């Protein structure tokens, strides 16, 4: 998606790979997230952070690698099931549950990605969608593990390291915030690493990258696995936050929603996924009474984003302010 490329960051002093503007944005984000639970409903905020992690992974694929996956819910959902199972049935600690969820997402992503990277663009999108059906059918069929139509219910939040209970929303909020910040800095690191530069080079001109001796397939595979791992992480965290995992979490609608979040926030931006997640989750919360109209509104936003502002909110903002966000 080359026409969303951002203006070049001015050669300025970098702190941890952050440009000046990004550091300011980071401090603002941190301050907002610290104050927010005293102003807004913590469970809502935690879901925003879960979906922001999910969307950051999808953005690594869409924005930085130029690969559109329409099956991200498979990794999100399986991460949620495994994370929920680990905490509920195996009585593991929440951090172990989240770690297992991440590994599950990454493992499935490694297998599916290995198949999907054989084709490009629209074929890639269709393959990811089709492969996600495997996971979907598994979730419906294997009622012993996933609970089928009923899903997994009453998942406990457990105690971190067996000591600190996450039962209160505020405790869990701090836990989720830490996980979110780790994921955020990780993604930031990946994007600005030499690896990330090669990935962007492949997106811009695959043939040139090949002629320089890089193997695009390997890079795409690794990014796909990372994105799936982040999806698994987000799913497991979401299971702790909401206490439940349902078929919706592995369903196609969830795959569509994460793409929408990236699109609304800004493809290929660092802060876009968070803003996109906040807007879409807020819509689901506050428009819940309109039930099926939410789907219609989401569809209209999709169309509007494609036709009117392809850069997304953060992308438009960055273009106005003339620096990368």
């Amino acid at each position: 998606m080359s026409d969303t490329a951002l203006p070049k960051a001015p050669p300025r002093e970098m702190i941890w790979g952050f440009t000046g503007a990004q550091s300011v944005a980071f401090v603002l984000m941190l301050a907002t997230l610290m104050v927010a639970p005293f102003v807004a409903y913590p469970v809502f905020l935690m879901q925003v952070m879960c979906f922001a992690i999910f969307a950051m992974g999808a953005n690594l694929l869409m924005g930085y690698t130029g690969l559109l996956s329409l099956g991200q819910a498979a990794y999100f959902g399986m991460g949620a099931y495994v994370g929920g199972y680990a905490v509920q049935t195996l009585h593991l600690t929440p951090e172990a549950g989240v770690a297992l969820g991440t590994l599950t997402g990454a493992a499935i992503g490694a297998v599916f990605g290995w198949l999907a990277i054989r084709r490009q663009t629209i074929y890639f999108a269709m393959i990811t969608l089709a492969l996600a059906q495997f996971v979907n059918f598994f979730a419906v069929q294997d009622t012993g593990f996933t609970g089928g139509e009923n899903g997994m219910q009453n998942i406990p939040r457990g105690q971190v390291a067996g000591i600190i209970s996450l039962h209160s929303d505020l405790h869990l909020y701090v836990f989720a915030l830490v996980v979110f910040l780790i994921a955020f800095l990780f993604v930031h690191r990946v994007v600005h690493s030499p690896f990330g530069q090669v990935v962007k080079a492949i997106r811009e001109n695959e043939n040139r990258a090949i002629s320089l001796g890089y193997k695009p397939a390997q890079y795409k595979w690794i990014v796909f696995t990372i994105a799936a791992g982040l999806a698994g992480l987000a799913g497991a965290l979401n299971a702790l936050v909401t206490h439940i995992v349902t078929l919706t979490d592995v369903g196609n609608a969830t795959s569509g929603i994460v793409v929408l979040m990236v699109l609304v926030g800004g493809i290929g931006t660092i802060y876009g996924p968070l803003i996109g997640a906040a807007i879409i989750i807020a819509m689901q919360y506050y428009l819940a009474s309109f039930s099926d109209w939410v789907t219609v509104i989401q569809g209209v936003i999709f169309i509007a984003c494609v036709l009117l502002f392809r850069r997304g909110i953060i992308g438009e903002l960055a273009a106005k302010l003339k620096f990368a966000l």
Partner: protein
Amino acid sequence: MMMIFGKPAPLLFGQLLLGIINGSFYAMLSLGLAIIFGLLRVINFAHGALFMVGAFVTWGLHHYLGIGFWPALLIAPVIVAALGLGIERGLIRFTYKLDILYGLLLTFGLALVLEGLFTNGFGSSGVAYNAPDLLSGVVDLGFMFLPVYRGFVIVAAIVICTAVWFTIEKTRLGALLRAATENPSLVQAFGVNVPRLIALTFAGGVGLAGLAGVLAAPLYSVNPNMGSALIDTVFAVVVIGGMGSIGGAILTGFGLGIIQGFTEVFYPPASSVVVFAVMAIVLLTRPAGLFGKAA
């Protein structure tokens, strides 16, 4: 009772029949997708939703206007095609100069809008539509009983697919289409109105989805999700067949339907994923698809 491969023959033939019927819809839908993709370079994610609209229009014609199945077979596809024309002129044409994925994202959003609207209007459980009297009932073929309507769907699908194949491969219009697919600017230089050709191609492609929707109305429950339930499989069919050839799309569609039918006999739980398993195998062995060019 006659046994084949250790299974009762009626069961085997019954599932085979269901497989061919599913294959008929895979073929008709993937055909439309392939035609649209060929000229527009857009993979139409709203194809399943427009198939659903075709079924609802058929139901609506009967419910509100008392128009029966036979006229609907003509009217409903025309209405869906007209809707498609509006979608192409109003929305999709603005994505031609963009990255190929934007067309996909746009039609993805369009599918959400259509499904959401119909769910609001008619509920998610859907409505019932009966086959015309002429086509109800069952015939005894000796080795199995064949519901007349199902036989009709198979014959109709074969006729439709053959007609489309003939139009594209053997007529002047088809030659124009193929030429415009190869090199649109050259064809335009010869005085052909290519934008109009593109718009009509999209209308024709989704009209085909609408026609499939009419055929599906008496067979399946007419509900807002009937298209999205089918379209994932159709995409797998498209990946397996490759979008390079019209004949290939038809053969792959029917072939996979039959494979699915047989799987239902021998190992039912696998029947819903067998198409995706075949897709994985094809990707490993022939990444470009059975009939496709690398992309």
